[in-house]
């Protein structure tokens, strides 16, 4: 992906993130996280029905990389099965950690394919998906 397109995707998703704002609907599973090394904070709500991720909402304050990666991930995950989402997350995290990964399933998440070059941004890029992974693995 061209750098200009990456930047545009990231800035768009930071300034106008998908699915921001919580529902407080009890049928959603709710989880928050605090990145111990920085100041980003997310609350995430996830609705799963018959093994399908029906909806994900989030709220919180976080940096451009954390917010945009979560926003892009949410867009990618909704409507997929739990297993599909976990597989995308697994490959996305491998990419962020500079390991072998399957690029064919990541789509816009490829905007972060060079984030491993910035050590301090790696935790930002995985903050949101880690919470989603945690919810899916435990429910």
């Amino acid at each position: 992906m061209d750098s200009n397109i990456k930047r545009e995707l990231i800035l768009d998703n930071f300034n106008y993130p998908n699915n921001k704002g919580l529902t407080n609907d009890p049928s959603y599973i709710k989880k928050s996280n605090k990145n111990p090394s920085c100041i980003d904070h997310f609350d995430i709500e996830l609705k799963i029905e018959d093994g399908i991720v029906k909806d994900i909402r989030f709220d919180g304050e976080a940096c451009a990389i954390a917010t945009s990666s979560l926003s892009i991930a949410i867009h990618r995950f909704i409507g997929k099965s739990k297993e599909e989402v976990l597989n995308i997350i697994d490959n996305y995290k491998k990419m962020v950690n500079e390991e072998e990964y399957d690029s064919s399933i990541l789509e816009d998440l490829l905007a972060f394919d060079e984030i491993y070059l910035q050590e301090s941004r790696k935790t930002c890029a995985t903050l949101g998906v880690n919470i989603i992974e945690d919810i899916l693995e435990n429910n």
Partner: protein
Amino acid sequence: MHRDDFNILNTNIIYFDNGATSLKPKCVTDSINKYYSEYPMNAHRGDYNLSMLTSNLYEKSRDKVKEFINAKSSKEIVFTSGATESLNMIINGYFKHALNSNDEVILSKSEHASLILPFMELGVKIKYADLDEDYKLSLDNISQKVTNNTKVIALSHISNVIGDKRDIKSICEFAHKNNILVVVDAAQSLGHTLVDVTDMDIDFLAGSAHKFCGPMGVGILYAKEELMKNIKPVTTGGGVTSSFREDEIVYKDYPFNLEAGTRNVPGVIALADTIDYINSIGVNTIEEYVSDLRKYLITKLSKLDNLDIYNKDIDGSTIIFNVKGVFAQDTSLYLDKKNICVRSGDHCDKMLHEVTGVKNTVRVSLYFYNTIEECDKLVEALDNKNILEESLGI
């Protein structure tokens, strides 16, 4: 000023995170090296000459601190690991025993976590004094919260986020008229402005050496002698007792009863060199220089229309701001790419945002080795419409 004393300033780093910790001059690192190469002994443990030399240097440092803050006696000084430990010892070693459940403590929401949390853990009633519209804490706001049950006023001398300097002398005078004790967190003020515990009539004071050019892991606890007598050891172990049997512990006299276990001996010794160094420049000279530099920087930053500055008019050394539309951390990562070190976040103050409405900010905190040229570079870096985009590093 005095930039040659800091090896790290020979690199092209611009260090504006002095509120977190200051740089260490060569005389301080030399002192630590000298300890490890010439007399690396424990203090107050051995009878041989070298150990005596170490013990003497350790106690000389106590005398030095006494003079630095103008305490009446060296017995009023305990060495700790930092302001955090000092505050925990004051609160858990003294107030835990002196307060009952009806007693009230006055704090403000612009205090550091190390002052608020130990009081919260005590389970006493806490009242938070209001802040002025420019987020400063005044005696007026404190006095409004005083009731017959108020026993303690606890506050920082200079707050670490807003940077306002509180009128400690008037606050102590007011408190004592009302039979209230005052705990002063001097982490941001020692070595930055004059601290005179006798003139200000402070009851308890906490500080950290590393905030004024000293070593990491060395703190100061000051208490008036009649209060020091009644601080109970929170930690006990080697070095604090004169004897103990199955059914009895006999503690040494203060301050030694409060310094259990092996201390940061090189750090304590280097604190004496730190104080000599700061005195050789002069605390008043430092304060004036930093104040002028801050005025220069704030005037320049105020001209940029992409910034929200939250503490324009204060006496301390900090400027907190955000770039419009940019998350604080993105701004600090952008500045890091230009070798400018600043802090972003809530600065260990988790409640201030309830008052200011902004959770995370960028903080620039100055010290005497910062320069006008460095300030100009910061202004130049922030005078940019593409900060967010450039912060991404993509």
